């Protein structure tokens, strides 16, 4: 079971790492932000799987912290590229 969870953690880390090629290729900053967002979610998944397999104390609190801040980079990007306006229709 431990090996399966670790293998799953490694697999997810590998896939999102390949996704990081979007930071490299872009072509736009919004695509780069999305790659970072995917790495954030994948990192949380990797952390949860590795923590369940190795039983590190407190690892779930790290995951909780990362989950709490998962949107921050993307929100900072969007609010600095197009400042939210009061009259947005949606």
């Amino acid at each position, binding site marked *: *079971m431990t090996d*399966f*969870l670790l293998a*799953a953690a490694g*697999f*997810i880390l590998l*896939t*999102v790492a*390949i*996704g990081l*090629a*979007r930071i490299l290729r872009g072509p*736009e900053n*919004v*695509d780069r*932000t*999305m*790659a970072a*967002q*995917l790495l954030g*979610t*994948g990192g*949380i*998944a990797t952390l*949860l*799987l590795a923590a*369940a397999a190795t*039983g590190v104390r407190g690892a*779930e*609190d790290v*995951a*909780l912290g990362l*989950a*709490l801040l*998962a*949107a921050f980079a*993307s*929100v900072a990007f*969007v*609010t600095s*590229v*197009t400042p939210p306006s009061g009259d*947005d229709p*949606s």
Partner: protein
Amino acid sequence: MSVADIFTVVAVGAGCFFFLAGTAGLLRFPDSLTRLHALTKADNLGLGLIVLGLLPQATGLLGALKLLAVWVLVQLSSATVAQVIAQALRRRGPSS
């Protein structure tokens, strides 16, 4: 292998598949809006299935609740990010 372990293997395996799908979409889809669509699948289903799969392995009720809280927070973040990025893309117009 107990029933709980089989459940874990199936759910975590399915979660891995959605991460793979999300990454493939992010790399292969033609424009930003479709790539955004692929991204949210990994966020919602990928992490959701992994959390579901880890629940039988959680240490006690608090551990399980923390796992669920992680998923709910990522759901909330992911939905918000998808909305605000899509709004920013739309406001900028399809041309650029």
